[in-house]
């Protein structure tokens, strides 16, 4: 652990993203950045707090729709839109969190899925007069340029999202080192002992739930700004497993997993799809392989090798 200090990790992450940005098209880079933020929330929930959720699109959509409502009906500043998306994610977590985090992990997975389904139909049908149903809300033209960094332009959006991703990554890195991080891991494997040591499992999980899903809502807001429109598609049921899949693809409980997984996933989706089609089939087989090979994921398998290289050369 000490041999692979965290600033090296950040440098590596920077490096990876910079490479992506230089060699690959901008939309691809932007998608990866947003997607990795999305997955970071899910990965924290799964790897640290021990909760698997098949309903992350619900929180993604919470952020996206809140941002979209604001930009479509009320205002024009995308930053305020993001802020509103994040606050909506917080409110959503505060409402459903106390109910959900009391559940056993398997029920937790399903209740979130149910929430995503509810959200989908609410946006598609129930609130159709406001959300314009399947057509979605289009507000790209509504947004005004912002000073300093104009996130309505893809290039500068990338810079903003990139910095945001790093900040979130650093936050999770910090969280892992805190007593909270230790409590969360503890609660994941032995909730009885946590209680009899005098901590509250509920508080630990609730807090983790909030952190994870506010992050997810933030990713949703970024999607909204970047695409300039939001439709119910964002929370459709067949996208529900994506973040979990990518978390596992990248390696559960590793900090770089979400990034590596997002690159691999988006890469396969965008690049391989053009070559062989059926990219999801490909990912399916890859997942089976990864889990049979020891659940470590891409990053989990790479990390020990990299550590060897790094510790051999620098320490």
């Amino acid at each position, binding site marked *: 652990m000490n041999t692979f200090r965290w600033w090296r990790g950040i440098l590596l992450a920077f490096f990876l993203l910079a490479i992506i940005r230089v060699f690959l098209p901008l939309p691809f880079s932007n998608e990866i950045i947003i997607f990795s933020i999305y997955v970071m929330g899910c990965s924290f929930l799964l790897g640290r707090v021990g909760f698997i959720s098949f309903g992350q699109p619900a929180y993604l959509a919470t952020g996206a729709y809140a941002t979209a409502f604001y930009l479509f009906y009320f205002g024009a500043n995308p930053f305020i839109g993001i802020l509103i998306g994040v606050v909506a994610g917080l409110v959503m977590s505060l409402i459903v969190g106390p109910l959900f985090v009391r559940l056993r992990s398997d029920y937790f997975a399903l209740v979130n899925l149910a929430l995503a389904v509810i959200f989908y139909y609410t946006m598609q049908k129930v609130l159709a007069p406001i959300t314009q149903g399947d057509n979605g809300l289009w507000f790209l033209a509504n947004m005004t340029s912002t000073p300093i960094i104009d996130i309505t332009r893809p290039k500068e959006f990338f810079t903003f999202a990139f910095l945001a991703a790093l900040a979130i990554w650093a936050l999770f890195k910090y969280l892992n080192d805190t007593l909270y991080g230790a409590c969360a*891991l503890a609660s994941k494997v032995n909730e009885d002992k946590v209680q*009899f040591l005098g901590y509250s499992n509920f508080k630990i999980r609730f807090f983790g739930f909030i952190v994870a899903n506010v992050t997810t809502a933030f990713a949703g807001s970024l999607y909204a700004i970047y695409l300039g429109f939001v439709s119910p598609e964002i929370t459709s049921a067949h996208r529900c497993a994506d973040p979990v899949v990518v978390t596992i693809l990248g390696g559960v409980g590793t900090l770089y997993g979400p990034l590596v997984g997002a690159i691999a996933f988006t890469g396969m989706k965008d690049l391989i799809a053009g070559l062989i089609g059926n990219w999801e089939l490909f990912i399916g087989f890859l997942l089976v392989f990864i889990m049979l090979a020891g659940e470590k994921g891409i990053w989990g398998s790479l990390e020990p090798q990299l550590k060897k290289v790094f510790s051999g050369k620098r320490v």
Partner: protein
Amino acid sequence: MSTNLGAEIIKTVGVTKRFGELVAVNKVDYLLHENEVAGIIGANGSGKTTFFNLVTGYFPPDEGTVYYKGEDITGTPPEQRVAMGMMRTFQLTSTFDNLAVIDNLVLSYFRAYQKHSLFHLFTNTCKKHRKNEKIQAIVETFELQDVADREVRHLGLGEKRRLEIAMAILAEPKVLLLDEPLAGLAENEIKAVLSVLRRHIGTQTILIVEHKISHVEDFLQRLTVMHEGRVIADGGYEECLRDPEVRRSYWQIDVSEDGVEEACS
């Protein structure tokens, strides 16, 4: 028995716990005084662990009341009982296997000595507390130096057992409840653990469930014998084991020439 008993600290009145047909703990009245060092023995399945679970709040009793310092705590959740000063260990060693040994101790230390709201959990790193004197002292006492940075899942049973007891003792609870703390320990480890516990006599209330009573005979001030969910004897060590009912019903106790040797399952 010790001459001057402190105020009562734990009291149960008629606590009963059933598992289906089975009455695991049957109308047990029990009184523990401050700074007493007491033991509970009984054959496997006589209800000792279940009684511990009732006292510490692992589950509520079907009937009866549990008091802590005169206050009814029957429905109080475990973490609040810990805050009141109760701490237990588990018969099947219970630690955080995915954390380093030292961080297991840090978690126990932090709860006991620092403000530990979510905010404080968030603003403190583990690293900051690992070198704390109290933690380092307990690491030494329990000879965990060599494994301190290792994840608990790589530890042997004896080391894990020592760690769990260390976590409990580190927190300096008012009442320490140990469920078969010596099981799985080597002879020298047992001696070491008992000598640590001895240092706490007079300042802490200690309640031990132990199988091998020979280990704790010169240590306990008081003994309670359980049989099929009931308390069948309670008092001084010698008198308890001479009690005819204990001898009759608790047939597992071998009586050799040099007195009571062992209670085995």
